[in-house]
């Protein structure tokens, strides 16, 4: 019985990982990552590792997500440019870009 639950959760994990990687919205990628951690914690409970499960749920699922969301807010203006074409995006920050590249990458 446990095997089937593990199989189902594992499939779900892989699907969530793929979704987190390929999702178009960064926010949903972060939420998916958080859920992925939570379901991994469930898996840890199933394989008799409650210590790991608690730690994964507290750190991996809760706290990591908090930091990710903070990073998302701090960079929120970049998100608008996330979906834009490369050309528009290049125009926006070409100046900033040049400042970092010249001289250091000779």
């Amino acid at each position, binding site marked *: 019985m446990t095997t089937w639950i593990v199989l189902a959760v594992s499939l779900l994990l892989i699907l969530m990982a793929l979704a987190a990687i390929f999702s178009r919205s960064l926010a949903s990628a972060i939420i998916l990552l958080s859920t992925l951690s939570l379901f991994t914690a469930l898996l840890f409970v199933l394989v008799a590792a*409650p*210590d*790991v*499960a*608690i*730690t994964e*749920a*507290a*750190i991996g699922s*809760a*706290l990591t997500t*908090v*930091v990710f969301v*903070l*990073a998302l*807010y*701090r960079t*929120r203006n970049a998100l608008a440019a996330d979906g834009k074409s490369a050309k528009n995006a290049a125009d926006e920050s070409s*100046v*900033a870009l*040049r*400042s*970092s*590249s*010249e*001289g*250091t990458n000779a």
Partner: protein
Amino acid sequence: MRKLAGILLIGGLVFYMASLVPALFMPSARTSLDSIGTPIIESSERVSGSANVVTAIVVQYRGLDTLGEVTVLFLSALGVAILASGLRDDVFSSMFAQDDGGFILQAGGRFLFPFIILIGVYIILHGHLSPGGGFPGGVLIATALFILILTGESSHMPHRLLNVLEGIAGLGFIGLGALGFMGTEQSFLTNVLPKGEYMTLFSAGFIPFIYAMVGMKVASELTTVVATLTEAPVNTEAPVNTEAPVNTEAPVHGSTKEKGRP
């Protein structure tokens, strides 16, 4: 190009691992342990007095790893504080300082705060009896403090105090470990304290004390990390000068652009 390289790399790894996996990595249904786990399970009562074998390993058998792990968190908190000192405060002044999170969050936060702290302390102190211990307990306490930030009750955490707590907890860990030098074997991290009665709260020698130190350290470090990132730091840096090419920017002492050269 990037995608192609990625696919090639990962594909190669998949192929290689897949060829190994059936032969080596898949014992069909192991029924016994053939690792150091067995002797550790057998000796953990005598050596550490902890009913939770994972705790016994984390604190006693591999205590040096835990010291290193706490150091990693310490470094990470230090690094976040160093790097965040240059962040601009355009977002968070509006996000947390002015917004109190609304009535429900405030009331709920006030109600929950003592309970979360209590559960955190409980988890830390029962690390040798039940799942949990210093790390999850410390995270819970940090979460309670984060709720305070969210509800706007405490817009500025006392960073100096948190740093002092971090340092004291770290020194406490080392001090408890150094007690081992007084034992017969004279080795660091030996459990020389009396072990008490097995499977009761007052047992397992120094394990609850070490976990208390770890919990204190983790709580203060994680609070530092989250608080540093949420609080709006004073913007000390001059606005980014995008025109200046890097090679004329003198990389003088530290991160300064505005400071004069000696």
